[in-house]
Structure formats: C-alpha cells, structure tokens
C-alpha cells in the first residue's frame, strides 16, 4: 500500500494510487445479474480527470463545497476524486433522506455544486422548498434522454478536454463535511480534515490490510463513514477492488459473494442478522443426521480456532458454508450500531471472523476494532493505533463516559461553536457513550449518556429531530425521548423512542388520539418512528424561554415510573 505518512491530502494519495496500479481492477458495478461496469485504475483516471477539468472551468475553486447524493456506484467515487483533485470539500449526503432534508442540508453546508442521481434529483425538484435552493450547479447522473433537468447538467456530458490542475491541500485543510444525524433540529455537520482520514486509513489498514486482488463488497451507503473509508479510500490506496451492487435485495447480495469471490464486506447489524436467519433456516432444513454431522464439524472448527482464526482450515471443514460466501471471504466488518454477541459468535464458529468495532462520525470512522487475537464477541475490540481512549468519572464498576484523543477527531461541527465546545473539551472528544475496559484492554460498551438512539441500520436518531412530526397532535405538550436515556439500562440494545404526552386539562386519552399518533408517526421514515408512548400527568418543566427542560423531565419520569409503564405504539 502507499505510505500515507508521505501525503498531505486524500487527493494526492488517490492520484498516486491511480498511477501505481494502472492495470488493476478498481471498480466493478453489478445490477442484479448483469455486470454494468468494470474499471481499472487507469480507466478510473480517464473518467475522473475530464470531470475535474470541467469543474475547474465551471469556476469550482479550492475549498468550494460539492455535495454528492447517490446510491453506491462508480460515479460516486469518480465524482469524489474529481472534487478532491480540484481542491474541493466533499459533502456526502445520505441518499435515503427525504427531498426536504436534502435541501436543508445543502443549504446548511452551503454546497456550491451538487452531484445527484436522476431519481433523487426529480424528487428534490418536486419538493416545495426547491425554489429556495442556492446550489450554483447541479450534475445529474443517468437522466433519461427526454428528462427535464430543471437547469441541471448531465453528469455524463459534463467533461472537458485538457489536463486539470491538481490542487494540493494541507493536512489540516477540510476534506469532508459529514452529517452525523438527520435533520429537523440542528444539523450536525462534522468537519473532517485530510489528516483525520489519512490517519484513520493508516490505522485501519494496519490491522485489516487490503492488497491488489482483494475485492471489497460495498453495501453500506458510501456517504456513511465506514463505507467511505473501507469501501473507497482504504481499498484505493492499497490497489484493491470495490464491488458495487445497484440492488441490495438479499438474493442478489448472496449471488455477488459467489460471483465476485468477495474478500471483505462491511455490514450493519440488521444485515448480519438477516444473513444469520437465512443460514439458520438452511441448517434447520437439514435432515437430523446431516444436522448432527454439521454440528460436529462446527464444534471441531470452534475448538481449533479458539485462539485465532484460521480461515483456510475452516473452509476445509465447512466448505458448503464458505462456498455460499464465495469461498474467498476473510472477514466481515460490522459496525455502526450495537451487535448482539450471539450473532458475532455464530459467524465466528462457522469460521467467518467478524471484526466488530466502535466509532463515530466525529472521530472519522472507527476507534476500536476487534483484532481477532483472540476473537471476542462480548467487546468492541481494542483502540486502533493512534487512538487514546479514557473512561471519564468511572463508577464503582469502572463504567464511565468514553473520551477520545486522536488525530482522527474532527475539527469542529459546522457553524456550531457551542456544540463543538461541549463535545471537544481540552482536545478530548466526549463520545456520550458509556463503557469500560477489561483486563485485556478490550472496550465494552454499556449504553449512552446522550438522548439518542442508534438503529440496527447504523443511523443516529436524535429525538429532538423528529418531534416536529407530532406538531398536529391534539395534546397540551409532548416530548420524545430515547427510552434508555430515561431509564439507563447499562447495556446496549432495546433502543426505542418514546413519545411522552401531557393531556389538556379534562382531556381523556382515547382511540382518536392513538390514531392521530399513528398518523403522525407514519409520516416519519420507518427507522425514525417512535416505538411507544407514555401519558405523563404533570406539566413539563420549562426554561424561562419556555424550552422543555429535557434532562429534568427525563429524570422525573425515570424516578416516578418504571420502563414497563410505556405502551407500544
């Protein structure tokens, strides 16, 4: 791989990677059973440089911001490289957000350019807020020939001849602005520098190296910190290949493992659990003798890989299981949310190591990862090289808030010095996550100090962000909490949002009110919905400016009522 210590910015490292492995494959893109694209590093360069030149000619200047809203595909990475080449700042936005949310984040980030897939652009142009957008130029990919692009350019035609000027950046310059939460409240734009990414990449590849010939299956959205790092920067600076799928239907994902002999994949817990369910169903369908035989082989594999994984041995013992994953899988990287140890152990026992880790967007990607020496299902691993972690104010059991000091910690939150000052104190990033270290230096997580949840799909949900969805609710007042914030559980999992309502004087809870709650809830994307409600009998404590004192209210509810008092919605 490239020696990242020698580079001051991502653009320079990527530029050298394209020159170093010109004939190696870098991208494969498949749509269902059809392969759409296969590019070498040299092809990639040929596609990116005319775009960089066109950006330059269109007055895209160093430090200008360009947003990308696309599903995982080759044009995402080509566009990102062109932006870095021109010295720009990349704003990767979650394609699953609504059009209104996209417009809000475009405005917040002050993106000058937008690169977007046609179907997403169509939704944005149909949004009532569209007229107010201030993006200077929009490039739309894959637009049908007859499409009305509302003033946007076609990405495929937006290219110019001639060598673009490469714009070097310093390590402390901003590389990306990444939003760590949804919208509705105050958007949290993490400002990440080139140094953050270069250091993160160096640390991760020290433990989980890529090399030419490795194929990484990119399933998590590329805007997500994990995929951006291990599905773009990491493989590219090592000459490896990234495989994109245009559909994430389980049957096509399964086919891709075999078809492309995948080496690594990153998954969020919900997908890993789905794979576990599928495998268990297959095992259950076996006849009793075959099942007994399989259990015996799993037992042998378990005993022989107790201290360290031996993928070659496991493949020999359990060939059919490994062939279902293509026969070349070395590890599954899982992160983004809490993963049940039993699922991790299930895969490890089959000889498929799962690298469980912990991180947050504010610290670039990952802070700890399981180094598999030996595998541990009950922890999120050890701190990566270059990461210093501390447990603040530990209780009698040693559990306290995790704080981080590292070159991977973001510069600040965009336009929010107050939140930045609360989050980064004396150079230490306060994660809001509760944990402790065991005797072997492994980090164990126990819950959150913050009022937030992380879904199984790896999305951060801040209750304040979704409260506006309940504005029409005919009640005196309401508030949304993470259940674990009100009733600290000292363990992860069971994360749900609770809608707390205070009725008007004389008002009774009835069927109509429940229906109104359901209607409001339905307007939210499924992953943002509240899971339960609670009728609270006192007025909410408020500040002089009439803001709800959330911490005081949560504490009052937590002390007066048991978690069992909430009613499922």
């Amino acid at each position: 791989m490239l020696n990242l210590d020698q580079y001051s910015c991502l653009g320079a490292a990527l530029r050298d990677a394209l020159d170093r492995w010109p004939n190696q494959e870098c991208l494969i893109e498949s749509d269902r059973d059809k392969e759409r694209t296969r590019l070498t590093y040299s092809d990639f360069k040929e596609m990116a440089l005319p775009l960089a030149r066109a950006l330059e000619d269109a007055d895209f200047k160093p430090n200008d911001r360009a947003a990308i809203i696309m599903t995982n595909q080759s044009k995402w990475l080509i566009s990102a490289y062109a932006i870095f080449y021109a010295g720009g700042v990349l704003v990767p936005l979650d394609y699953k957000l609504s059009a209104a949310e996209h417009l809000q984040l475009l405005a917040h980030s002050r993106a000058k350019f937008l690169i977007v897939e046609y179907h997403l652009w169509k939704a944005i142009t149909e949004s009532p807020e569209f007229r107010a957008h201030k993006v200077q130029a929009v490039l739309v990919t894959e637009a049908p020939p007859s499409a009305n692009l509302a003033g946007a350019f076609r990405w495929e035609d937006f290219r110019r001849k001639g060598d673009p000027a490469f714009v070097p950046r310093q390590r402390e310059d901003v590389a990306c602005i990444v939003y760590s939460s949804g919208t509705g409240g105050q958007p949290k734009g993490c400002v990440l520098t080139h140094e953050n990414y270069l250091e993160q990449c160096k640390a991760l590849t020290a433990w989980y190296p890529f090399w030419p010939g490795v194929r990484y299956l990119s399933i998590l959205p590329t805007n997500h910190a994990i995929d951006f790092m291990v599905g773009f920067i990491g493989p590219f600076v090592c000459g490896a290949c990234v495989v994109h799928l245009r559909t994430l239907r389980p049957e096509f994902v399964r086919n891709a493992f075999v078809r492309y002999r995948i080496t690594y994949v990153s998954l969020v817990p919900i997908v890993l659990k789905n794979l576990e369910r599928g495998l268990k169903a297959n095992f259950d369908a076996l006849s009793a003798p075959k099942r007994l035989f399989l259990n015996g082989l799993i037992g042998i594999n378990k005993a022989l890989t107790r201290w360290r994984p031996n993928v070659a041995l496991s493949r020999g013992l359990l060939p059919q299981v490994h062939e279902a994953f293509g026969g070349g899988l070395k590890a599954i990287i899982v992160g983004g949310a809490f993963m049940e140890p039993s699922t991790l152990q299930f895969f490890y026992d089959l000889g498929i190591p799962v690298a469980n880790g912990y991180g947050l967007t504010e610290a670039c990607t990952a802070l700890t990862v399981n180094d598999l020496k030996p595998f541990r299902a009950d922890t999120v691993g050890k701190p990566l090289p270059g990461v210093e972690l501390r447990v603040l104010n530990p209780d009698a059991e040693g559990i306290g808030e995790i704080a981080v000091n590292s070159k991977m910690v973001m510069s600040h939150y965009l336009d929010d010095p107050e939140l930045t000052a609360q989050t980064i104190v004396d150079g230490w990033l306060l994660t809001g996550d509760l944990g402790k270290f065991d005797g072997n230096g492994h980090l164990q997580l126990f819950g959150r100090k913050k009022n937030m949840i992380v879904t199984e799909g790896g999305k951060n949900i801040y209750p304040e962000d979704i409260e506006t969805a309940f504005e029409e609710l005919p009640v005196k007042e309401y508030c949304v909490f993470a259940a674990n914030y009100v009733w600290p559980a000292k363990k992860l999992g069971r994360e749900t949002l609770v809608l707390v309502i205070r009725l008007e004087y004389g008002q009774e809870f009835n069927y109509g009110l429940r229906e109104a709650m359901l209607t409001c809830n339905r307007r939210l994307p499924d992953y943002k919905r509240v899971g339960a409600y609670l009728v609270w009998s006192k007025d909410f404590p408020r500040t002089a400016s009439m803001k709800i004192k959330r911490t005081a209210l949560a504490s009052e509810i937590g002390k007066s009522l048991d978690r069992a008092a909430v009613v499922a919605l």
Partner: protein
Amino acid sequence: MTQATDQTLDQILTLAATHFKVPREKLTPDDDFFKTLRIDSLQALDLLTRLENHFHVELPDYELQGVSDFRTLASRIQARL
C-alpha cells in the same frame, strides 16, 4: 383511485398476507406494512422481489424509499405496469 390500482392493491395485500402468513382480512390499504407484517427493511425488499415476479415488472430499490403503506406501493407498481 382507478379500478386498475384497486385490483393491484388487492393482489398486493393477498400476496403479502400469504408470504408473511398474516390473515388477509387483517390487512388494509393504509396499513404501515412494516408494523402490520412485523418486517424490517430487508424483508420489505424481499416483498418487492415477490411483487416483481407476480406483476412481471422491474422495481428499483428506490421505489420503496419513503413508502410504508400498501396503497402507495400499489400506485408505484401500477405506474410501471
């Protein structure tokens, strides 16, 4: 709503009920299918595959984005028939 969409909707409800083993009479057009069928986003994609096979259409994953009720799903499918 057109008669054609009504028919599409009815077929979706029947197919979802059969596939996820839920009594057909328990499903209504405006139900949130994630809740009524107790499914996650991946199982919803699986439902989409079954609907494609049934209606002989190709539905990109993004057609399901932001959709959680059977009625909207029916209109998306109807638009491609």
